[in-house]
């Protein structure tokens, strides 16, 4: 997903747009930006500072600066939950754990080598069960007896799920097993960081109530999920952009801008 957030000087969100990135759309971040500008009712030149973050940050031709997703993410989560000690972010391609204190990033773990334990796992399971990703969480809450699902390889789990269906195991029990499997992997990943509350859970997978519940069972306490869990990286980037601008102004220096071009990326040509 490509997300654009525009904030004003009071940290209020004026626009937020979330669009599928896709193979071709990696070139087209400008279109998402244009949509956000329209939503906010401002022109591109009125934006004081643009920060690009995430996997594709170097392919954004209209950014003033690139900052890693870890930094942006930590900033965004801290904005909403100042008491955060552990931020867990599970997206479509990777999973991250950030150990934080007073907004500072102390340590992190990351897993992007294997699809199991990421949102891709849930996407593929949903597709093979002909379910909408958004419906999985709620359905799984009806389970009375969680099916045992292995948490190794996504490919093998998908086959396992199909054979459970043919054995007549109820769908909600299978989904509960699937959510338990991904929650196990997430917990195992962040265990290295010594888990302590408050834990904030973000990324696309944090939209799944079944995973949230499974994760809470494993951790033994509640996790905090922001209202829009997909946006914390983009919000963090916007906040950092504002801080850079204000710092320059306070020092009486000009704001160091990039050579912005609100156009398609030529990175891939």
């Amino acid at each position, binding site marked *: 997903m490509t997300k654009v957030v525009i904030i004003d000087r009071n940290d209020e969100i004026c626009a937020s747009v979330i669009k599928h990135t896709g*193979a*071709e759309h990696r070139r087209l971040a400008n279109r998402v930006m244009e949509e956000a500008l329209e939503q906010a009712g401002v022109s591109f030149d009125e934006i004081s500072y643009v920060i690009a973050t995430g996997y594709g940050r170097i392919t954004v031709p209209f950014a003033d600066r690139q900052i890693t997703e870890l930094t942006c993410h930590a900033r965004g989560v801290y904005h909403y939950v100042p008491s955060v000690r552990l931020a867990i972010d599970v997206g479509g*391609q990777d999973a991250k754990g950030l150990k934080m204190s007073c907004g500072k990033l102390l340590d992190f773990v990351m897993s*992007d*080598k*294997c*699809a199991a334990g990421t949102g*891709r796992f849930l996407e*593929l399971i949903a597709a093979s069960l002909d379910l909408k990703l958004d419906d999985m969480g709620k359905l799984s809450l009806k389970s009375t007896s969680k099916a045992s699902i292995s948490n*190794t*390889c*996504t*490919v*093998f789990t998908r*086959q396992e799920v*199909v*054979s459970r269906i*043919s054995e007549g195991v109820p769908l909600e029990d299978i989904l509960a097993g699937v959510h338990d499997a991904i929650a196990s992997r997430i917990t195992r990943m962040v265990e290295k960081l010594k888990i302590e509350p408050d834990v904030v859970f973000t990324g696309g997978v944090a939209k799944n109530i079944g995973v949230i519940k499974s994760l809470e069972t494993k951790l033994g306490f509640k996790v905090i999920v922001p209202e829009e869990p997909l946006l914390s990286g983009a919000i963090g980037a916007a906040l950092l952009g504002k801080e850079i601008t204000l710092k320059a102004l306070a020092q009486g220096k000009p704001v160091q801008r990039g050579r912005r071009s609100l156009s398609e990326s030529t990175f*891939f040509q």
Partner: protein
Amino acid sequence: MAWFMGIDIGSGMSKGVITRDGKLVSHYMLTSGVNYRNVSLRLREELLADTGLGVEDIARTVTTGHAAGLIPFSNHHVADTQCCARGIKHIFPSVRTVIDVQGQSSQVIHLDERGQITGFAVSEACASGSGYFIEAIANVLQVKLEDIGSLSLNAKNPVTFTTGCAVFSESEVISRVAEGVTKEDIIAGVHQALAGKISVLNDRVGLEEPCAISGGGGLNIGLIRSIEELGIQLLIPSQPQIVNALGAALVAGEQDF
């Protein structure tokens, strides 16, 4: 005179073999599908029809593979590692190592001069270490599985995958195709990636030549070349997929259960 039957139910293909006096008499292969019980019964029917035998003529049936325990007429089930070792020893008596590339796993087995297993290593936790990886990429590229080996021999510049995950590799392939990379180069890259995973198993076992390949991977000349590029000379059975079923039938005739 006694006949013995070996049935190997794989994740993709099911194979059956009848032996007599330690020799292969008949073999048959079917797609496994989802009903392993039915597929095993059909295999038996075909084998009996081919040899003109009746159920009562089969002295013992050994099953192996994915669903060995679900076969109703099985007398015993035996691990695929043991069946593979026995089958390959029959085909290549001097063999010391066998690389068995199956649909959902790979294994490398080391044998002593008498054919006893002295060590083995299995890759089964991750699809990228198995034939599935090749099937998935062939599917993305819309290339027939039987063409994939020869296509990859025409590669000029095999791609290197940035991920070791079969699922992520599928998306990577889509991006590469969009960038204009040829099917040949992508397929060759897949073969090299799988050969890399196998080489980890080779090191764990301590590969010793002569070395043979078995399983569906033994049909893929592209994969074979990639493994040989690691510096290994491979013996290739004429029918690599039936090695484990053959081993099961031989074990049925030799062991006291």
